[in-house]
């Protein structure tokens, strides 16, 4: 009896709700800090934090509100993402930014839609993120485009006839991008060998052997960076000669570290290039590098160097879009912000951002980069736009 009474008391005490502070607007940051995508998620968060350091307040109804970032960790897992999303909703955020990784965004989307809180995906590229959720917008391009870009690149650059496509079971980003790549590659007359591995696989030698034995000319493996480092390491020890292509996740210092000193050819498509001519981008790159070098713990989150990742730029852009939306709504009410968001147009680091009726940014440019295994940096290869692909 006593034990039960004690339990009831504990329950009652813990249930007391916290009172929200006045004059702040909360922006939720829904990103992985652990799990397979933890490294990339952290880079996206520092982009958002940098933007927040530049624009820490917003004017609403003639009053200045402090912007408070509420950062949660969705652990790169769809089931954990639901809890993390609920934590944000419970904290009373007005708008959400993130996530890195499409699966977690799709899972969190249900919670945000139910709570009528708008969310802006920074680098989630799967079409399902926005098409299946009325409260999700995004500032990057989509996988059908990215897959087509890489399929074209494989054919044009390497004259590939057969592609070995490797994706991870139960990861919407990798299976989605792999499928769209395969579709595009086959429609251009190529042959595709499709294989999948399960989460937690450590041994990729059998897959690489399958690629060699299947007579593939390129490998396309849009995996998480955790898998990538294993794959690259094993490919290097097997002396794999064919180029390895991947999507935006591979533009990460994890890849550079793994590829250092090897003979591999590794290329990926991404959203942004440091040396892009546009003035907003130049200013961002300069400011961001200075900020990273001034904040050692942020630099650690960036992988210990000051190379500007595309996802950081997208995080920055998403934050700026959110601020514009709050201004346009002239309210900190999430529903009002969701109504104002579709018509927001900004000039971002990764190009001009406006939304179509599904909620996707009208973006038509991908940057292809190559991992330089000697200088341990990414070399810019070319840009590819939708218009060029149509020709």
């Amino acid at each position, binding site marked *: 009896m006593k034990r039960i009474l004690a339990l009831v008391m504990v329950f009652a005490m813990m249930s007391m709700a916290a009172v929200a502070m006045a004059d702040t607007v909360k922006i939720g940051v829904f990103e992985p800090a652990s799990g397979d995508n*933890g490294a990339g998620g952290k880079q996206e968060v520092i982009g958002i934090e940098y933007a927040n350091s530049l624009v820490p307040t917003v004017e609403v109804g003639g009053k200045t509100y402090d912007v408070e970032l509420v950062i949660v960790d969705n652990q790169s897992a769809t089931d954990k993402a639901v809890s993390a999303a609920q934590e944000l909703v419970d904290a009373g955020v007005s708008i959400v930014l993130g996530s890195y990784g499409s699966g977690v965004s799709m899972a969190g989307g249900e919670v945000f839609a139910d709570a009528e809180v708008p969310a802006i995906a920074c680098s989630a590229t799967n079409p399902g993120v926005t098409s299946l959720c009325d409260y999700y917008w995004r500032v990057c391009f989509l996988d059908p485009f990215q897959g087509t870009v890489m399929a074209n690149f494989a054919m044009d650059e390497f004259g590939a006839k057969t592609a070995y496509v490797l994706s991870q079971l139960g990861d919407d980003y990798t299976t989605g991008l792999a499928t769209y790549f395969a579709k595009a590659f086959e429609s251009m007359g190529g042959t595709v060998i499709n294989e*999948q591995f399960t989460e937690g696989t*450590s041994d990729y030698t059998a897959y690489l052997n*399958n690629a060699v034995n299947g007579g593939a000319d390129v490998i396309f493996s849009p995996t998480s960076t955790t898998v990538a*480092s294993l794959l690259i390491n094993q490919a*290097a*020890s097997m002396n794999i000669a064919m180029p390895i292509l991947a999507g935006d996740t591979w533009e990460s210092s994890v890849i550079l*570290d793994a590829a250092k000193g090897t003979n591999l050819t590794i290329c990926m498509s991404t959203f942004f290039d440091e040396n892009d001519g546009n003035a907003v981008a130049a200013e961002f790159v300069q400011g961001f590098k200075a900020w990273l070098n001034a904040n050692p713990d942020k630099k650690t989150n960036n992988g210990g160097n000051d190379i500007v990742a595309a996802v950081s730029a997208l995080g920055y852009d998403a934050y700026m879009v959110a601020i514009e939306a709050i201004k346009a709504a002239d309210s900190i009410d999430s529903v009002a912000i969701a109504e104002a968001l579709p018509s927001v147009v900004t000039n971002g680091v990764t190009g001009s951002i406006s939304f179509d009726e599904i909620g996707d940014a009208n973006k038509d440019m991908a940057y292809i980069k190559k991992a330089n295994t000697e200088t341990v940096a990414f070399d810019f290869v070319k840009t590819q736009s939708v218009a060029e692909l149509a020709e």
Partner: protein
Amino acid sequence: MIDKMLPYLLSGISVGGQYALIAVGYTMVYGILRLINFAHGDIFTAAGFFMVYIAAALPVPLAIPLVVILTVLLGVTVERVAYKPLRSAPRMSVMISAIGVSYLLQNLMWYVTGGLAKQYPVIPWISDSVTIGSATTKMVTLITPVLTILLVLALVTIIQKTKIGMAMRAVSKDFETAQLMGIKINSVISTTFVIGSLLAAVGSVLYFSNYTSVTPTVGAMPGLKAFVAAVFGGIGSIPGAVIGAFIIGICENIIKALGYTTFSDAFTFALLIVILLFKPTGLFGEKTSEKV
């Protein structure tokens, strides 16, 4: 044909050797305590993290023995803290405790590492590439089966020839009678955990030199597979566990070679169920009669 299969066979034998080193720990503990030590896979993972952190401070030749010692300490501590107090409890309670320890170790490793994958240090020579016929692979792939067999032969000799080995055999035959005969049960059990953890530590060095990234849950799958190998070979039998592990490692890679990659893990469990249903004592297990 042989040319094409060679790389798969090589990595199958190598991964089989690594499973074997883990499986011996399972099978010995089961033989003596009748306990499926669910935490064994996590001890294997912990050995991986020990190496990551120690090698950051010390040179590799010093780090390896230190890793082995720490892993043995961890294994024995787990036994002392989580299994010993439950010696007289029902078997189910001990198994639940093992599951609890596994949960704790995984969460602890997640906490310490921040949930991010850690890069395993490069151990000179065994991480180098070698080419044999049509296959290019790491040196460790070739070393693993040799080392595994040597270690297991040494272990079998210990169990057959030494006093403690005799005590172990007695305890696994009949726990209570052995106790009555004056065998110090606790030291026998501790020795079992020392040997099991030691082999798991060696296995982890070989495994992670091959697959160079360590995450908190990385040991779960190899752990389960090693356990299946132990059951397959007849739980309680050391040579059985080793042969079972090699068979599983090779089959797994052949299945991948045939293109059924989705099922390479499920295959292991299907094998387990088939064995349990048709020959529950495994390939080399002793027949035991159910005690009333």
